[in-house]
């Protein structure tokens, strides 16, 4: 059943909280370099799905394979080290540190206690921070305290922190929430750029944005997959219209 070509293979995944099934026997497959968008009404289980993949929540049943390695047994930091990055709904950055420090801390070296003690910020680290900062459009703000950034910039910073880890699967939870129109455009461009080297799962509600970036769309409802396919196919699916998109 599991195809070794998939970056992410979720099979028969179930999680219930006190009897309520938030995710119900879910199957999901993501290809290499695919930008998959997950949409659905509130409470469909989208964020829970990301929580399960990155290890924040433990599944009751089922398997999650990343490049054919089982993730459900690993601790959160182990999953990250395998190459999965997760961005949270509200920008989760270190407000008291500068943009540079935020990015530097995310550099994937010196992750153990003694490694962190010995970590040296050398040219390699500096160059990488510089290039990621340019990628996310914050190169001018490297020495600003992160708490002073605008909401949109904080979202970009968090994406940047994930990029520093160079993940093969990047998961974003509502990345453009609270952004202006211009910022949304820039973010769409950013996501399309960074998708060239990695797979991405994005949860979003803005249909225009979804249409722009998605190669494939998955619609979730009540913990199950309702429909899957290209944006056009999904938008014309009567079940989806009924539940989510409206008439």
């Amino acid at each position, binding site marked *: 059943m599991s195809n070794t070509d998939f970056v992410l293979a979720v099979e028969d995944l179930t999680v219930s909280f006190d009897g309520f099934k938030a995710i119900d026997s879910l199957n999901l497959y993501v290809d290499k370099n695919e930008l998959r968008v997950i949409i659905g009404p509130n409470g469909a289980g989208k964020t829970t799905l990301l929580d399960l993949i990155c290890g924040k929540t433990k599944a009751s049943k089922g398997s999650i394979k990343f490049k054919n390695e089982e993730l459900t047994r690993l601790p959160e*930091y182990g999953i990250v080290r395998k190459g999965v990055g997760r961005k949270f709904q509200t920008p*989760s950055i270190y407000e*008291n*540190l500068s943009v540079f420090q935020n990015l530097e801390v995310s550099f994937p070296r010196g992750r*153990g*206690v003694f490694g962190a003690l*010995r*970590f040296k910020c050398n040219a390699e680290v500096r160059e990488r921070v510089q290039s990621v900062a340019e990628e996310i459009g914050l190169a001018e703000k490297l020495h600003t305290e992160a708490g002073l950034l605008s909401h949109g910039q904080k979202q970009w910073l968090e994406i940047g*922190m994930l990029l520093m880890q160079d993940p093969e699967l990047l998961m974003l939870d509502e990345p453009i929430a609270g952004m202006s129109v211009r910022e949304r455009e820039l973010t769409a461009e950013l996501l399309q750029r960074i998708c060239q080297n990695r797979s991405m799962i994005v949860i979003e509600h803005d249909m225009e944005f979804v249409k722009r970036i998605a190669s494939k769309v998955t619609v979730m409802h009540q913990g199950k997959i309702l429909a899957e396919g290209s944006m056009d196919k999904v938008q014309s699916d009567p079940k989806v219209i009924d539940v989510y998109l409206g008439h």
Partner: protein
Amino acid sequence: MTPAMTSLKDGLLKGGLGSLLILALIILVVFPLTLDLFRLNLVGKYLTYGFVAIGLVMLWGYGGVLSLGQGVFFGLGGYCMAMFLKLEASDPETTKIQSTPGIPDFMDWNQLTELPFWWKPFYSLPLTMIAIIAIPSLLAFIISFAMFKRRVGGVYFAIITQAVALVLSVLIIGQQGYTGGVNGMTDLKTMLGWDTRTDSAKYILYFVSAGLLIVSILLCMWVQKSKLGTLLLAMRDKEDRVRFSGYDVSMFKVFVFCLAAALSAIGGAMFTLQVGFMSPSFVGIVPSIEMVIFAAVGGRMSLVGAVYGALLVNFGKTYFSETAPDLWLFLMAALFIGVVLAFPNGLAGLYESHIKPWIARRVAARKASVTPRTPAAPTPPSTSLSSSAPPAAPARA
């Protein structure tokens, strides 16, 4: 210079060295010259509490973990040293009037007839010194590993540290045959033949304590300036984000807890050497919480501040206990409440937020009035983690 030394130098030059230098001056030069030996000995005693305080700065200020049981580690270090000194003071010659000569007096009073096997390693000074660091660190490792791996933190952890302090103090008091009970181990006189009660010995011990404290502060500063220090601050702020950046958060907390334990143990050992005894009154809940107040008053984010805090609070305690003991407890109550409500970063925080800007303004005003000249190009702000102190973080419980 090795890379480690270079980064140490960088760290010192950019931040904190100035205040450390002032502290070193005060405790290594000013105090010995101005205080009589009795008072100096007292200061030496207070400085050993400083070890606990700087441990708490790392653990609580930086790591965000409140431990109400540091007395446990202080006591363990102190008792290890006391055991060594007691054995030396209990040689068969001196104890020949006992029913069983050659064992400590309290064992004799409790009808023990031979030294328990676990006392035997403490005949050797090197083994004792290893034990002083190893035993508390091991205990700290076990407790913190079990707790932090299970995500026990905050209040629950604090209460459990209290319980551990209670367990150890009850154990020590209850097993008086093995530990000297509530009176502790007293009558400690010589260390490898050197009499620790002479005036010259007291001077030497004072300088050793003060020196060790300065070295410990340097060590902690090195940790603070490293990526680990920044991670600790980040964890305090957004533990989940650190975890999801690939870090095993619990091991960092374990590290800093063991560091604080080892520092407290060294303090305990130096205390025993200077004061000549160790008792369970330094191990339990009340002394452990008092040690927290030293760090809180001095400033839980400031290593140097915490030492001042320990000195100040203990000076106050000694002074008021003699003159107005009733007033002292009210003062302590006010300190606890005040630190929490009004000045959460302690005296160091007050210094940073009020005094330093005032000084800066005065200096700038004077400069402006003396020579108007084109200002020099501003130096580029330090960009790397290993050379700049992170901006002062607001105290968060």
